[in-house]
Structures are given as C-alpha cells and as structure tokens.
C-alpha cells in the first residue's frame, strides 16, 4: 500500500455488485437472512475498502506505523506460542532450540506491548475516537487490558521459580478482589488454559474487530495544526484538499 492520495477509505470505487455477480441474491431470495447479511457486509466493507491499494496522504508518518508493528508482533507471538504448545515445558527449559523459541515468545510480547503503548499514545493525542470511531477505540482499550491478562497468565505458565513467585505474590491481590473463587492463580492447569486458549481467542477476535472497524471508518485524520484547534465546537474539519468521506472526523 502506498500513501499517495488525500482520499479517505470511503472514497474507494463502488464494488461491482449486481445480478449474476455471485453476491446479489437470486430473485425471490432477497429477504433470506443470508442474503441480507451478505448485503450488509458488502455495504459496510466492500473489497476495495477492506483491502485498499492506497492510503490517505496523512498516513505517511511513522506515528501510523505502530499499529501494524503491534499486529506483526502479535503474529510472532502466536507462531512462537504454537511451537511452545507443541513441544512442552521440558523442551522450552532444557533444549537450546526450546530456549530460543521461549526467548522469541518473550521478546515478541515485549515488542507487542512496546508498540501497543506507542500506538495508544499516538491515537490518544490525535483523539482517534472522532468520527464515530468509539467502537474502534474501545476495542483497542479492551484488547490492551486483555493482553495484560494474557501476559500475566503467561508468566504463571512458565513452570519455573519465577512463575511460582509471581503466582504466590499475586494470589492475595486476586483473592482480595473476590475473583480468586473462579480465577485461581495457584491452579497451573487453569492458568495455562486461560493463556493458551481463552485469552488468545479473545485478544485475536478483538484485534480482528478492531481492524475491521479501522477499515470501515477509515484511518482517523490528524488534528488540524491551528485553525479551530481551540474551538469549543469540537475538532476542526479536515484540510480543504481532502475529500469528504465516511472516514471524516465528525
């Protein structure tokens, strides 16, 4: 993808939808739930909007790179995590290859949080919830919180003195919240399953929803440099060179 145009994501050409295109329902099938769902999905995210060839010109900044770096880190986390699941604790503690993958998993998590925090800073300071992007913002927030829980259960699943120390230190805090009744940090099997099954599914699903929302609403425009910045009526509109689109700020 290149950052060369001022057009928002909403300015993508309309998708060729019509009779006989494999998308439009056959006559008489218009009211079927599958046809309505397919139509709604195509209207919300036509292929040109789901996977655009070009990005708005304002995306040509390193600040916009932190989101995809977080995503890349997440992919490495998933791949290295699957390898660790397949081989088991004795392998990741004792063999050189296992130690290597264990380190890959740890450092990809470090980078995931590093870039996710930078992504959060960038989006916070540009008020990225503008333009009906509240759901995009909130999926990111919940994803961040769940990622912390995933990392915590990962520390508990290491099968070493570090995990024993963390679990015994954390149990009183967890118990004081009342969550210890169903979230027992001393129960290794429970923590491992949270870490390798439930939480990755939740984080992955939220990342997917977050990305779909970004594609649907478009990448948020930066705040204007001067005009209207301190206006009480809200953020100023986009530069005059930009085309209006569903991804506009208001």
């Amino acid at each position, binding site marked *: *993808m*290149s*950052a*060369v*145009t001022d057009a928002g994501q909403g300015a993508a050409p309309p998708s060729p939808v019509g009779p006989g295109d494999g998308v439009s329902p056959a006559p008489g099938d218009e009211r079927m739930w599958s046809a309505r769902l397919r139509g709604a999905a195509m209207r919300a995210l036509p292929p040109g909007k789901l996977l655009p060839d070009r990005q708005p*010109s304002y995306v*040509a*900044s*390193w*600040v916009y*790179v*932190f989101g995809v770096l977080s995503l890349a880190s997440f992919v490495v986390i998933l791949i290295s995590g699957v390898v660790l699941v397949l081989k088991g604790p004795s392998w990741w503690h004792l063999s050189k290859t296992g130690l290597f993958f264990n380190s890959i998993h740890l450092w990809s998590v*470090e980078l995931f949080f*590093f870039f996710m*925090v*930078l992504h959060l*800073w*960038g989006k916070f300071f540009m008020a990225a919830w503008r333009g009906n992007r509240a759901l995009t913002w909130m999926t990111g927030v919940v994803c961040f919180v769940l990622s912390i829980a995933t990392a915590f259960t990962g520390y508990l699943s290491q099968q070493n003195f570090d995990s024993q120390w963390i679990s015994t230190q954390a149990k009183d805090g967890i118990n004081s919240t009342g969550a210890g009744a169903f979230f027992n940090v001393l129960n290794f099997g429970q923590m491992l399953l949270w870490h390798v099954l439930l939480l990755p599914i939740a984080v992955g699903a939220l990342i997917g929803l977050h990305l779909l929302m970004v594609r649907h609403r478009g990448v948020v425009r930066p705040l204007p440099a001067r005009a209207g910045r301190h206006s009480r009526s809200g953020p100023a509109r986009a530069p005059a060179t930009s085309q209006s689109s569903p991804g506009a700020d208001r």
Partner: protein
Amino acid sequence: MLSLMLGALVNLSHPGHYLHWGFVQMSVANFVVIVLMVVVFAAALVIPFRAGRRHR
C-alpha cells in the same frame, strides 16, 4: 562467545536495581523501557516518512 559477550552487557545474577522517588518505586529495567518508548515516539513525530510513489 556471542552469548558470553551479550551476557557481559547485562549481569542478571543479582537482585534488580530500583529507583525511588518518595513512595514511587520503579525498576531500572522498566524505567529504561519507558525512556525508550518516549524516545521512539518523539522520533516518530520528527523523522520524515519516506512516502511511496506519487501519482496525484
């Protein structure tokens, strides 16, 4: 050899170092990471982004 060289950079065979500001306590490792994040964020704001092909 490489592992020895890298291991010599950061000796982990002792208790971690901590910074104290009143009741605020933070490990040096966490402090370094936060400083790195601030530096990278500032760099992302000022370093020009090499744009792709310009058609319009």
